[in-house]
């Protein structure tokens, strides 16, 4: 049994001088108290990555709260009747397109006794029928028929006043932004463009302004909490350190022009770099002094680095997140979406969708496919991410209950900067998290 009581916390506060700066925060809805360190978001309690009760609370306050959750892309459900299964937190959802071309999302859970109504992860349907007792729903989630509703030969059946209209699938509010579909359970979630803010909206439009097509789709099952993944994608500090390939082949250096951007709320972020814009003379990179750069390495066949300038702004590497769980990436010409789905407090599944444009020439598709070697579970610049987030999950086991991460690179600001030697982007995530979770 897990007990985190205020009593225990305050007893510890008296016993240990290190605790005197801490303010116990909430005990909302009878859930465990989490004492956010007085240093604010420059400290992150390890409990957040590990505690089953926090995981439960995320389901209600974050995933059912005022957040826009990634559901899928237009090009995944182009035709009426097309659908795709996804998850909002732990909740299974169906994203589908109705006869009129409108996009809907509903919980994939039968209103009768809770079975999944749809099993195959993608397909085309005229309606959704639950296999258990054949309750059927239209593409908007309305209950259209109940087997033996009037009984058999006048015996049995549902009560006469049973109203189908009250027993549809639970629906999400859906909003579509340049072919990207988001859903929310909450009435309080502001319109998406307001949620994103002008800068984030503009950058999202940048790559998603033309019809796209899927060129790859798979997932990575990670043995760590989902938030470690979101921290990792929002962490420009590690990029040229952990990923030796980046530094060794000059794909990304801190000296290159770029920015770490946050919207006003801090919830969403972008980090981008522009290759070919730096001069390493006089920097830490000069003379191969950095242990993480092996610039003597030469590729046998540099085809993998072939690219073409696709965006007029000259950005060669960009990662953008929309709070809470989705990442949009552009690594040279390798475009894609990564969506993290929590699978309990200690595991998560990372869904990768690799993209091109509908009107790509074959040579462009080929370059995108080759560059896909850089990303994903076998990626030259991302294989390490799954390893290292798991190292954190294992490293925090059995620590002091008050143990916490230090997120202080670049001070305590949650603001955009031209340098990427900062963890402001991670602090922004925790700011959003605290606001939504009430910590």
């Amino acid at each position, binding site marked *: 049994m897990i007990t985190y009581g205020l009593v225990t916390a305050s007893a510890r506060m008296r016993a240990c001088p290190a605790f005197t700066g801490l303010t116990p925060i909430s005990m909302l809805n009878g859930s465990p108290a989490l004492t956010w360190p007085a240093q604010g978001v420059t400290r992150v309690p390890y409990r957040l990555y590990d505690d089953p009760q926090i995981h439960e609370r995320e389901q209600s306050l974050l995933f059912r709260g005022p957040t826009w959750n990634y559901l899928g892309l237009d090009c995944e459900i182009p035709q009426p009747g097309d659908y795709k299964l996804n998850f909002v937190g732990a909740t299974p959802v169906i994203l589908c397109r109705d006869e009129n071309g409108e996009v809907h999302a509903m919980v994939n859970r039968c209103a009768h006794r809770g079975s999944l109504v749809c099993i195959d992860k993608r397909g085309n349907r005229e309606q959704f029928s639950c296999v258990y007792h054949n309750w059927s729903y239209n593409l908007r989630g309305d209950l259209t028929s109940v087997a033996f509703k009037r009984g058999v030969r006048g015996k049995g059946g549902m009560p006469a006043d049973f109203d189908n209209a009250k027993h549809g699938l639970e629906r999400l509010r859906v909003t579509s932004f340049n072919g990207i579909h988001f859903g929310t359970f909450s009435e309080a979630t502001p319109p998406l463009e307001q949620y994103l803010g002008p800068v984030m909206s503009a950058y999202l439009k940048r790559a998603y302004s033309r019809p796209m097509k*899927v*060129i*790859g*789709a*798979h*997932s*990575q*099952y*990670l*043995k760590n909490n989902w938030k470690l993944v979101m921290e990792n994608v929002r962490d420009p500090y590690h990029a040229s350190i*952990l*990923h*030796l*390939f980046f530094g*060794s082949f000059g794909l990304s250096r801190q000296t290159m022009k770029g920015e770490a951007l946050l919207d006003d709320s801090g919830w969403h972020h972008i980090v981008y770099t522009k290759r070919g814009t730096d001069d390493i003379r006089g920097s830490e990179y000069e003379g191969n002094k950095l242990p993480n750069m*092996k610039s003597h*390495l030469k*590729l*046998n*066949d540099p*085809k*993998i680095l072939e690219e073409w300038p696709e965006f007029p702004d000259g950005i060669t590497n960009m990662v953008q997140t929309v709070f809470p769980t989705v990442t949009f990436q552009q690594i040279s010409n390798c475009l894609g979406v990564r969506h993290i789905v929590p699978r309990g407090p200690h595991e998560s*599944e990372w869904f990768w969708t*690799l993209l091109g444009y509908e009107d790509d020439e074959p040579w462009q*598709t*080929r370059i*995108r*496919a*080759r560059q*896909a*070697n850089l990303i*994903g*579970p*076998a990626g*030259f610049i991302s*294989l*390490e991410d*799954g*390893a*290292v987030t*798991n190292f954190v999950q294992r490293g925090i086991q059995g620590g002091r209950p008050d143990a916490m991460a230090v997120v202080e690179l670049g001070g305590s600001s949650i603001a955009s900067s031209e340098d990427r030697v900062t963890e402001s982007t991670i602090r922004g995530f925790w700011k959003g998290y605290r606001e939504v979770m009430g910590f």
Partner: protein
Amino acid sequence: MATRKTAAATKAIDKTEARLRVEELLHEYAACIDDGRYEEWPAMFTEECRYLIIPKESHERGYVSGFYLCESRGMLADRILCLRETAIYESQQYRHLIGGTRVLECNAAGCRAETPFTVIRTTQDGAMSLFAAGKYVDEVVFESERALFREKLVLTDSTRIDILIAAPL
């Protein structure tokens, strides 16, 4: 009758011979990876070649992106270079179990064959897991003494990878 029987017998031997050559190549391929002799791995392919690890489902949908895509022996060598020099991950051991090979087409120059495989992965803490299962779809050329892969599709049954793929499957 006798003549036809002979012709049939000759053809059957060709296919068997082809199968033996493919099996030998596959067994060497698996041993080379499982023994960590990664540097010998690219030499089992022709100079111009295609090596793709991709979920079977993605392949059937016509997707081109999977986990590994190498289009030359040099790109295969780069995979090994990076595995040795830049990739950071926990050390792990593969054990390939190669199933029965079916030769789909063959002639004197080469053949196309399919072979099921499984890979058991053991991590340094001793945990063992069935890491991958699927089939190899190989285009093999018989060049002089050696058989070489011209194309090797590694079609994984699952769309999901447990944490990461470092060494080739």
